[in-house]
């Protein structure tokens, strides 16, 4: 087996049928533990070979391939770290499977360099309404240019991450696939769409990629070689937390309901400022009953769920998504007995978007009634997802607690007042003393600079301010030398100035150097954070020249692009208003990890 590894054919990247047969017969009697050991052993051999071949010549954050070993180039474009963790896991699996894996971040990767690769596994997420992650913007742009390099002979497969409650589900992955195909690349395995519960799909894709690429260690899913690599970052280890406070922090006359939630953590919870906390919350009764009525169900009827018998009410309350409309739900629901016209509408251009705009699942059910059984209806629903909240506290400040800033999502459908189920759930259902399961979702793309003397410019209107509460607390506890400038905005000064008293105290004690505020409804003309940024252009440039890092957190659909545009304008002012030059400056900042975003 050792020698076999050395003589793998270079061209197709697959083992010969003989080699496969030999390998299979060799490992047939192995126990799972032995298989795991073997995979590590061969991976170690591959790594040793790489060291022998000398210095790494690949791009800065890439891991180079080795001559004589089939290459698999794994490229990722990540915003919150999911794509990165999947790509990293694939990279490890590929190496263990005997490939020369190469791991490349899209950030700073040019189309020209990418075109030189032979076999590309591309992992990329989609944000908001079909937007690429920051890291992927430039690469996608380059691939779409008229003079983009040819990708003839290049093989690839795309894993697209997304959230099916958005109409433009996995759009960025599709964009990359289309762009690469247009340039002559060959899609060797169909694009795989991953929803927020991406793990199963991601693992299948990983197997598929490795198998198609020739590492025929097995012909079906679930072989040990793949299981030796656990999901790297998902951090889904849940721990128990106790609700110690759940307090509204918008004024009683505010048009918004935002709560500050404090959770005491019963066991040490490893997190850093910028990370998120995941929780799964039962659906509120009012929403469950609404759906039961809309769908013509009987709450006490029994249905099967994962092989157990539960009541319709229990299933909807604790196990299923009852509000968020997702693509898979629509596809399943459209096939139910008696559902007329829905499929036709979904097939129309923008048809899916129009249906999603209806609001909640109950609204779809109301508009397109079904005549199917309770079981069939239940089966069309997706499992209840956890929701992620930016952590609003700092480990150094409150080591035994995690704080969250939770906004109630509220929107109207046909005049009926509706609540976003989960936020509503947190706000209304979390009572002091309740125990809940939580997990940390690390966000490696939104971390404080290691150098505590780096200045921070933090732009976080609305609940986007949550991680900055954590940042400033952490920096204060570190007695950091860096300066801190916060841009905050919301509707009104008197009702919506989240954590006002705390910011005032930070300003008094110097932990916060400056704060600029934009309250949109306090005057005739609406004012937003981007307006405040423009007003402070020259001082912002001074901070940026001094090495400041810019952080943006909050709404991805309007705020983040507006802030992005304002920053480009501000940077362009040094190039006689040349916006392209400003955009290039901002891109440089981003690559230097001095322009970081956590937008949703």
């Amino acid at each position, binding site marked *: 087996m050792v020698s076999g590894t050395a003589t793998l054919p270079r061209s197709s990247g697959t083992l010969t049928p003989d080699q496969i047969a030999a390998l299979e017969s060799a490992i047939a009697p192995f126990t799972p533990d032995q298989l795991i050991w073997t995979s590590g052993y061969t991976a170690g051999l591959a790594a040793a070979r790489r060291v022998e071949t000398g210095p790494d010549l690949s791009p800065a954050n890439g891991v180079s391939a080795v001559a004589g070993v089939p290459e698999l180039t794994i490229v990722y474009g990540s915003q919150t770290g999911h794509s990165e963790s999947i790509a990293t896991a694939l990279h490890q699996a590929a190496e263990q499977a005997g490939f020369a894996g190469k791991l490349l971040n899209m950030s700073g990767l040019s189309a020209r360099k990418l075109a030189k690769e032979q076999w590309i596994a591309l992992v990329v997420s989609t944000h908001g309404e079909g937007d690429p992650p920051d890291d992927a913007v430039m690469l996608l742009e380059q691939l779409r240019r008229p003079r983009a390099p040819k990708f003839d002979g290049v093989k690839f497969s795309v894993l697209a991450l997304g959230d099916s409650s958005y109409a433009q589900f996995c759009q960025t992955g599709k964009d990359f696939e289309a762009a690469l195909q247009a340039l002559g690349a060959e899609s060797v395995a169909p694009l795989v769409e991953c929803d927020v519960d991406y793990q199963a799909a991601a693992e299948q894709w990983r197997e598929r990629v490795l198998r198609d690429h020739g590492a025929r260690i097995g012909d079906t899913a679930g072989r040990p070689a793949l299981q030796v690599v656990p999901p790297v970052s998902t951090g889904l280890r849940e721990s128990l937390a106790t609700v110690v406070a759940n307090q509204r*922090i918008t*004024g*009683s006359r505010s048009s918004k309901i935002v709560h500050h939630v404090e959770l005491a953590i019963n066991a040490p919870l490893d997190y850093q400022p910028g990370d998120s906390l995941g929780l799964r919350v039962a659906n509120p009764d009012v929403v469950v009953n609404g759906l039961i009525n809309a769908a013509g169900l009987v709450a006490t009827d029994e249905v099967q769920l994962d092989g157990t018998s539960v009541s319709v009410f229990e299933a909807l309350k604790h196990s299923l998504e009852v509000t968020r409309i997702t693509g898979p739900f629509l596809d399943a629901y459209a096939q139910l007995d008696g559902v007329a016209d829905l499929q036709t509408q979904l097939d129309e251009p923008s048809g899916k978007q129009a249906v999603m705009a209806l609001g909640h699942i109950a609204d779809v059910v109301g508009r397109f009634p079904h005549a199917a059984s309770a079981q069939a209806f239940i089966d069309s629903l997706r499992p209840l997802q956890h929701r992620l909240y930016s952590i609003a506290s700092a480990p150094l400040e409150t080591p035994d607690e995690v704080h969250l800033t939770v906004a109630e999502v509220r929107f109207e459908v046909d005049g009926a007042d509706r609540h976003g189920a989960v936020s509503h759930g947190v706000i209304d259902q979390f009572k002091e003393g309740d125990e809940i399961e939580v997990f940390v979702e690390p966000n490696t793309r939104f971390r404080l600079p290691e150098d505590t003397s780096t200045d921070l410019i933090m732009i976080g209107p609305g609940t986007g301010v949550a991680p900055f509460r954590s940042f400033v607390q952490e920096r204060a506890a570190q007695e950091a030398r860096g300066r801190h400038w916060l841009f905050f905005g919301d509707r009104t000064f008197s009702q919506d100035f989240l954590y006002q*008293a705390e*910011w*005032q105290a930070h300003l008094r004690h110097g932990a916060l150097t400056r704060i600029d*505020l934009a309250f949109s409804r306090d005057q005739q003309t609406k004012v937003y954070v981007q307006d405040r940024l423009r007003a402070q252009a020259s001082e912002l440039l001074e901070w940026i020249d001094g090495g400041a890092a810019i952080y943006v957190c909050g709404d991805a659909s309007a705020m983040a692009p507006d802030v992005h545009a304002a920053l480009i304008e501000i940077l362009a002012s040094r190039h006689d208003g040349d916006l392209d030059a400003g955009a290039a400056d901002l891109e440089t900042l981003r690559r230097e990890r001095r322009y970081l975003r956590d937008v949703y």
Partner: protein
Amino acid sequence: MTQKDTLSPVEGIKTRSKHLRGTLEHSLVDPVTGAIADDDTQVSKFHGIYQQDDRDRRAERQRQKLEPAYSFMIRGRLPGGRCTPEQWLAIEALGTQYAATGVRLTTRQAFQFHGVLKGALKPTIQGIDKALLDTIAACGDVNRNVMCSPNPDLSRVHREVDSLAAALSAHLTPQTRAYHEIWLDGEKLTDEPEVVEPIYGDTYLPRKFKTGFVIPPQNDVDVYTQDLGFIAIVEDGALLGFNVTAGGGMGSTHGDNKTFPRLADTLGFITPDQVLDTATAIVTTQRDFGNRSDRKNARLKYTIEAMGLAAFREQVETRQRFSFAPAREVRFSQSGDRLGWVEAEDGVWHFGLFIPSGRVRDHEQGPQYQTGLIEIAKIHKGEFRLTPNQNLIIAGVRVEDKALVAGLLAAHGLAQPTSNLAAGALACVALPTCALAMADAERFLPELTDKVEALFTHHGLPDQSLSMRVTGCPNGCARPFVAEVALVGKAPRHYNLYLGGRHDGTRLNKLYRENISVERVLEILDELIAQYAKARRAGERFGDYCIRSGVIAETKAGREFHDDVSDAA
């Protein structure tokens, strides 16, 4: 004056304020807080602006990690309470635009806006300026709004006295340009005159200073409660001059017997042309002799107690460079306002409009004070006079316009008060806005008047007249210590009960029971009214009865206010 090192902190703020500028300009543009800097909260008072916060929401806001719900009270300066219909409309418009609760009429003939947010201060003051009014010295350690009886009967004498009140108000207005610079974007002069404040000096007065002119027989301004009072002496319809009174004041502190309400002493008689000189002499005496280390002992009343009346009079006479003539005899009939239609000597009519607690607002399914007065202001050819008891006189209605005004009053449900008792009752703002209040006053008054009215009726005395006043604290904004029955707040729904004041405001009352519940107050009044109904003499008022029958000891001077308080209290 006491030693420099014991000066009260406010003295330091005044000194540092550079003639009332402080850091107000910076405070106004600080976007992080709806408040102004601590020191500026003292300075702003001199500009007629008080920082307040909604006390009902303090705890809630703290839990919400929000600062208190800060807002500001703006008080106008309106000598004698006079304004034109155009000014009324301007004030109304500003109140609607910027004040949370509209316009409120004060117990000192001024208008007040409550709940003005910091960002609206400047536009509001500029709007007031545009209406040819201002808020300078409406609060603070200076001479406040000069009061004058809006007495409608004697039109000619009223005009004379009122114009003297206006002249004195102008004379005692601070001369600093700070107000113009801060609020009206006035030009900043590079060099100030050497003496900025010829009367006040650089640190102004030790404490607030209140002045009132009264035209007997109606003691509507409660002249003896003023630091400085001028009682018009009228003979055959002509103004001869004034009896000058000094050293009145209501403010005191619960449990601190060194503080007490005090009625003014009469210094003597002066002629109208001597008013400004006498006022200057008294103000500067207080400026130089007043206590600047203890603000609870800083009013003129304590200065006079400390100096002795004779020494004080001598000091004033030296400064004014003439002696007081012997005081003339004065007779008051009652305190409070005259309400309803009154025909004046020159044949024009005045209507005294009762406005509960001075709140100019439209009641749901009740009187439409705001709308009604706006409609009247649109057609009224005379003027308005704010009264010392939070009411409003529609003054100078010609005979031919009387029906029109009466029609508008009726159309908006603006009738007479439901009872004499309601008409004679007075309350301060108290909770939730006033920082000093310990109990409700304005919000409690309607309940109290209804219940006391019912007691009198029950004992066979319907439509009784009574001066009854409620305040949230003992500082005395509604002048409680001259009332026949006064409730002064101690805790929510708990008050000190005072009895024995005189209906014309010429005698202080005395503590009868301390810190008792509203229910206990009513039980006590029930017993006393029952006795009064049986044992009163013909025409005897309730306050007088309480003293004659020995229910309460008479308070003959302010310094004896705390003496002879019953052990039962």
